[in-house]
Structure formats: C-alpha cells, structure tokens
C-alpha cells in the first residue's frame, strides 16, 4: 500500500515538474519569437504559403463542427426558451453565445487538434532527421524560417476561420429553427444583428489572435525541441494538442475576465 502511494507520489511529482518545465521552456521560446519576428528578412512568401495551407486544411472540419454546434445548440435552447415564453430571443441568444464564446473557443480547439499536432509532428520529424541542423549549417536561421512563419500564420488565420465558423453556425442554427417554426432568413439575421453588439464581437475575435498564437507556438516549441527519434515525434505531436487545448481554455478564462473588466457594460 505504502509502495503504491510512493509510486503515485513519484509519478505525480514527475508529471508536475515536466509540465512546469514545458511551461518555462515555452515562455522562453515565446520571448525568442517576439525578438525574432520583427527582424528582417521577413518571410512573406512562407507566411502566405502556411496561411493558405493551414486555412484550407482546417476549413472543412471547422465548417462541419460549426454547423453542428449551431444546429444542436438551437435544438437544445428552443424548448427551454419556449418554456419561459421567450422564444423570440432565440436568434439573439444563439448569436451572442456563438460570437462571444462558442465560435472562438470551438474553432480554436479544433484548430489545435488539427494544426498544433501537425506543426509538432512536422518540425519534430525535421529535428530528428537533422533537417533543422542542415538548415542551420547552410547559414539559414531555422527559427525564423520554420517557427516564426508558422506561428505568424496560425495567429492570423484563426480569426478568419472563426468568422467563417460563426457564419456557418448561424446557418446551422437557422436550419434548426425553420425545422420547427416559420422564420425567414432576413428576420433571423436581423434579430441576431440587433442582439449582438460591437462589444460582443471585438473581444470574441481579438481573443482568437491569442488562441492562434498558442496553437502555433506550442506545436512549434515541442516539435523544434523533439528528441529520441520517431517516439519523440509522436510525443511532440500528441503533447502539442493537450497543452495547446489546455492553454486555450485557461487563456479564455483570463481573457473573459479581462474583457468584463475592460468593458463593464457588456452583460
């Protein structure tokens, strides 16, 4: 019994120290990113290439997810609002929920699963097959060429994907509404636009820049520092998803609190 307790304690201690080590390494890596991102040469072609590639890769999956979320949420919310005689508020409440919270967070989590793991695996495999070293010896800064370009791309493509997901979710929501009652698309969108304010949209979209940065930097950090051959590549890929998803949720909590503090009238 005591042996098991000791073992459990040792495992927990190891996992905690490894988690905090990763966080410390990630912070140093992020500082390096901000130091390097402003220095020439600016890899515009590479950034554009990654933005298109990552955007196209994620577009179908986030689209389907957004559609289903909009549909299901409306199906769940409709009877509840009906119970309170507040059915008229359905488009508005769906709109606010999607714009403020669900759209950005769901898109970021799907994006993390698809992209962070991809970046982790790609850079990890480049590390263990010495491609990063080869870049370094040919006089090219691999951090700037591989990391800065990818993190920049994820930071700026996620907000665009989020706007797309919000739009698709509203379509899903509208379909759920018309399945049970008569409502025109114009009326539905009119109610959404009436309910959703500028102060709902801006913080919702702004936080996706932070989420995009997290997805990129976590994948890049774990891939760039991968060790131990193919096992290390797999580990970098899976750990990227876990850590980036966790950080997205933690930062969401912090940013929501910050938003409410900065815009106290948002309620």
């Amino acid at each position, binding site marked *: 019994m005591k042996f098991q307790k000791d073992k459990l304690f040792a495992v927990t201690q190891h996992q905690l120290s490894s988690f905090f080590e990763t966080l410390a390494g990630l912070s140093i890596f992020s500082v390096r990113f901000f130091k390097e991102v402003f220095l020439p040469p600016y890899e515009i072609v590479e950034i554009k290439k990654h933005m298109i590639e990552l955007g196209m890769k994620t577009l179908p999956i986030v689209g389907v997810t957004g559609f289903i979320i909009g549909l299901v949420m409306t199906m769940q919310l409709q009877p509840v609002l009906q119970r309170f005689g507040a059915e008229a508020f359905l488009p508005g409440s769906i709109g606010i929920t999607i714009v403020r919270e669900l759209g950005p967070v769901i898109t970021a989590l799907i994006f993390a699963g698809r992209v962070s793991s991809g970046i982790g695996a790609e850079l990890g495999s480049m590390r263990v097959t010495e491609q990063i*070293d*080869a870049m370094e010896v*040919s006089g090219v800064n691999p951090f700037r060429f591989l990391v800065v370009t990818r993190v920049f791309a994820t930071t700026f493509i996620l907000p665009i994907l989020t706007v797309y997901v919000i739009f698709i979710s509203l379509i899903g929501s509208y379909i759920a509404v018309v399945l049970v009652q008569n409502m025109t698309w114009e009326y539905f969108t009119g109610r959404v636009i009436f309910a959703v304010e500028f102060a709902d949209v801006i913080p919702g979209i702004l936080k996706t820049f932070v989420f995009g940065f997290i997805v990129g930097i976590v994948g890049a950090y774990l891939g760039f520092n991968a060790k131990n051959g193919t096992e290390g590549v797999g580990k970098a890929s899976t750990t990227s998803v876990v850590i980036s998803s966790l950080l997205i949720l933690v930062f969401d909590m912090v940013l929501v609190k910050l938003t409410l503090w900065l815009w106290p009238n948002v309620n």
Partner: protein
Amino acid sequence: MLTSMVKIKDLHKSFDDLVVLDGVSLNVEIGQNMVVFGRSGTGKSVLLKCLMRLMIPDSGEIFIKDKNVLNLNRNELNELRKDIGFLFQGSALYDSMTVRENLEFPLVRNFNLQQDEINDRINRVLEAVDLSDAIDKMPSELSGGMRKRIGLARSIITKPTLMLYDEPTTGLDPISSKEISTLIVDLQHAFKMTSIVVTHDVLCAKIIADCAIVLDGGHIVHEGTIKELLTAEDPFLKNFFSDKVIKNNGRN
C-alpha cells in the same frame, strides 16, 4: 599565410556524466582529407557538430580558417558556414521540397545570384553526382544512395572550401558505398576542398583518406596514414580493422 584549415585545441564535451570528448586536439591542413575512425558512441559525430557549432563544447578552442568558431557572433558564424559543406548521416534532405528546391535553398538564401546562375549551378552539381533526371523528384521518391548523392550535391553547390562528412556510406550496399566514396574523391579534386570524414567503412577510408585518426575513450589514440593504421601492431587497431576488413570482404 593560412596553412591550417581546422585547428582544434583541447576540446572537451560531456553529456551529464558521459565524457565524449576528453581533450581532443587536431590539425587539418589545407587540401588534406582526414578520416576519423572510432567505435560507435566515441564522439565522432559530436566532433563534427562541435566544428559547425551545432553543439557547444564544454571547453577548448576550434579554429576554422584561423577564426575562433566559438567566439563568432551569429552573422560571422553564418558567413563562415557558407564556406563549409556538411553531409549528414541521413542526408537531411528537406522532405517538403523537390530536389531542385533543396539545391536552390542555400543559394537563394545566402547568395545574391541571378536565376540563370542558380540553374547553372544546379545542373552542374546534378551532373557531378549523375542524377540530372531527379531534379523534379521529391526526396521520398529517391533511394538511399540517391539521397546521399543529392545531399552531397547540396553540400557542394555553395562551392565550400571545407567539407565535413558524417558517415557518408552508412546504410548503403557495398557497390553504392564504393561509388559514393569515389564520387567524394572526384569532387574533392574538382572543387579543391579540404575534408574531414567520419566513418566506420575501411574501404571508404582507403579511397578517400590522406591521413586518419582513431578516437577512443574521448581521446585520439592513433594518428597516421591509412596504411600505417592498417598495418599497425597495436592490439586495439588490429582488433578494430581486422574485424572491419573481414566484414567488408564478407559483404563484397
């Protein structure tokens, strides 16, 4: 006047408790082709990586063309690296790029060349390694030997004066291995390069080397020409080379 291409003084490198290099000193003259022998894990690749500052040694000094590699800033180091070619053990071709893009990469990034000049250099190095028709292939479409050749082409495309080879024949069949070794010698003559070759392959060493060193226990334990090392009466060398020769003969 510059006579030494590479000078290493009292180099030490450890990984935790494992001492890999323990006071290695070495001098490679301009135009010389030196082979580094040693059992697996004796720090041969670490030595090459320290030379390129891919690893930082614990202590010691490394001079390449009289420049102290460990004291150079990032820009100076990149300038020096442009003049050094490195063939990695696994070739390290960029998976996401075609052969042409792999060869273009160091030129486009580091040299202000016209596209015509770049194309000309690509064609010339591909001809040199006899793989002109692989120009638009992806690395995944190439065999191990072809990858080594393209890796070699990429290393020499910048016309380096110093070439470092990390196990250039590992994983190749004896015929491809001989072809690569001969190709290395031909290129050395054509481009007048100095080279340091880390290898286990005695046949490769016989073809390439002017002189050789043997690393063991973090030290250089023997130094001389290949012939001297192969005919030495030292039990360690006898054991090391006789085993190798038998294996090579067995394969051939």
